[in-house]
């Protein structure tokens, strides 16, 4: 349960992460180079002129490549989680890392968006509101899954490689749901899109992930 004390813990971890980020530019500078590079590679080597698909594919690939960096900051040189013995449920810690990854994912979206805006000579979608809504829920789900698994991967290293197989039941339905919403983004108006089955299932799945992933992380690390 997230009470006032847990909120303050989340705030403290986020504050620490942002201080580290702005001081060392650990991730943002990396995104700034990687995101346009991946976007340009996909644009050049993919014959499709469907910029919308290429946009979400770029965000997905950049997020996959960068999320591990965010989690690595929490691991000490001897392989332990630095905050392993904090007297709170580790799911609260995982939740704060998900929030941080989500905020950084918004930056990835902005950088990829700028790149596609330039290479497509303008807007590459018909409805800005639909696009924004889908980007937010796509980033939220992606940040949740990748943060939990990258934290687990850093922590368990070779001891629990089979646990990583668990990523598929989570990420595959999420990607299918995101793709279904993507098909509808350009021919529905905002209200239709909000009420569409595929977006509502995507939102429900995001909420489910947000509830399950931190608990799963806490359980796997401390057991």
């Amino acid at each position, binding site marked *: 349960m997230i009470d006032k004390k847990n909120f303050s813990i989340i705030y403290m971890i986020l504050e620490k992460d942002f201080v*580290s980020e702005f001081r060392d530019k650990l991730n943002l500078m990396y995104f700034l180079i990687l995101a346009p590079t991946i976007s340009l590679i996909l644009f050049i080597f993919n014959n499709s002129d469907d910029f919308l698909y290429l946009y979400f594919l770029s965000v997905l690939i950049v997020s996959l490549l960068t999320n591990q960096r965010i989690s690595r900051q929490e691991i000490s*040189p*001897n392989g*332990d989680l630095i905050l392993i013995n*904090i*007297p709170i449920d580790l799911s609260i810690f995982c939740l704060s890392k998900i929030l941080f990854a989500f905020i950084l994912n918004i930056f990835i979206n902005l950088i990829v968006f700028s790149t596609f805006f330039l290479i497509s000579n303008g807007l590459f979608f018909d409805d800005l509101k639909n696009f924004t809504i889908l980007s937010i829920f796509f980033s939220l789900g992606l940040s949740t899954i990748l943060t939990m698994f990258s934290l687990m991967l850093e922590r368990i290293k070779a001891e629990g490689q089979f646990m990583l197989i668990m990523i598929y039941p989570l990420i595959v339905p999420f990607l299918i749901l995101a793709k279904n919403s993507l098909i509808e983004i350009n021919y529905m108006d905002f209200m239709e899109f909000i009420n569409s089955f595929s977006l509502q299932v995507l939102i429900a799945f995001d909420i489910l992930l947000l509830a399950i992933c931190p608990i799963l992380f806490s359980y796997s690390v401390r057991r």
Partner: protein
Amino acid sequence: MKVLLKIASLEKKYNENVVFTSLSFDIPEKSIFWIKGINGSGKSTLMKILSSQIEDYQGDIWYSEKNIKKFDYKIYNEIFYLPTSPNLYDSLSARENIDFFSKIFLSKGLNNRAHLIDAFQVEKHLNKRTNELSDGIKKKISLIISFLINPKVLIFDEPYNYLDASSVESLNRVIKEYNDSGATFVISDNSSLISKLKPNGSLGLEV
């Protein structure tokens, strides 16, 4: 002395390698307990088990007559484990690390902050980033954080590593102060620097 930690038939294996077996001993309340043993004898593993960092073991550990597995994460309010290598955030300064850990652990001994900074002589290093500090200063910052958290049991794994002679004396002095005010210490040490503290009990581990 009242028993604070009771260890009964403890056994730990990594795959087929037995680290130790049938380990039973008591750690009295308000004592200084010395864990001895050569490298690879399982000192760090034992300390991690005592502090609930490792829960995969056979046997039982009782803290204040309650199995420590029953406490879940709340045990970390009572027992704090300090590893050999300091666990600090490199991007933060020494001061920011102290503030962050003090807040997140809801430290009970914050009024001792100035005294500890003075005792370990780290004042001039507080504004430096952790990745610019020597291993010795990092160790002192970690020790200060542990004392500020001020739990009932402090488990120190090789606390004298990286410290110079005067810092060792300072550490022993602070351990004595906290022990006098009721803290229990479990310390692993191969250098015998702990012997000046006249430990109340000890355990020798063998390979």
